[in-house]
């Protein structure tokens, strides 16, 4: 079930390495961006006003994901 990749020195690379060392993987930023875009659309079209708090939760989570990634990127902690 594992699909992790390793470099020649036996160190984990890609998503596995990012997760191991507490970094946000790059693809997660796209998930965050999708949350930011889709949450308000779903709120208006599908979920209705009853679940607007869920939309807010997903929307905020998306921004947190993007924000943490940018902060890690700026501080040199890239995945």
């Amino acid at each position, binding site marked *: *079930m594992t699909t992790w990749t390793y470099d020649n020195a*036996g160190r984990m690379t890609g998503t596995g390495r990012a997760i191991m060392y507490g970094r946000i993987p790059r693809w997660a930023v796209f998930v965050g961006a999708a949350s930011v875009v889709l949450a308000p659309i779903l709120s208006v079209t599908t979920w209705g006003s009853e679940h607007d*708090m*869920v939309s807010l939760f997903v929307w905020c989570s998306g921004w947190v994901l993007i924000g943490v990634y940018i902060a890690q990127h700026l501080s040199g902690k890239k995945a």
Partner: protein
Amino acid sequence: MLADAKVCAALAVMYAVFVATMLALLYGGHLEIGGGFTFALVVACRLFLWPFQGNGQRVSTRIVKEAIAPLCGMLITVLAALLAPGRESSAGALIGGGLGVLFLTFLWLVEARARTLLEAMTSENWSDEQRVTAYKWISDWTPHLPKTEAEIWAGHVSALEGAGRYQDAVKRFLRGAGPHRHSPQAGKALMSAARAASVTGEEKDGQQLLQQIADRYPNTWLAHVAASKLETTSENAKADQQR
């Protein structure tokens, strides 16, 4: 494998009961309790993912539990909030689940820091004092065994070397290397033990240790590290002779 299947089944049943209870509480209007159960459900993600961490020898399988758990927790929270009737029930699920996700994220970051320190201890040019302090941090903050046995063992080798107990580091390495011969941690510990051997005696001792390991565990990661280290040492020696 069978034991894993049984554990999975037991956890799945427990999880189903949890979900049913949470939904019943949310539907019944017990919002705080429903929120609490959502929290418990999210935190239990870690436990539920436990059987998928393999035999604990490989870091790659264990990180699934650490980092996937917050992700699953997020999905559970959103689903619970969507299924809960009304705004108040939804809010209860979001608060409980959100706190659960934060808790899991905290655990992930603590474990990631422990791993970063462990890596740095064995590969970077740290002072003895820094190594011992780092190992103490790892022991204090991750006593719930998020580390594999290989990591703990490798950490001991490195800490012993860092504390100046060079002979002990080499002895510890030789005692513990066998079961972890396929682990990258064993490679790092080998480097540590080789350094320790070269400090206690001559550079030759370190080389002998590397050769011994390469011979004893052929076709393993450990042997690969030993061989490449021997190659580097031999190249350095040739370069010195030429000079």
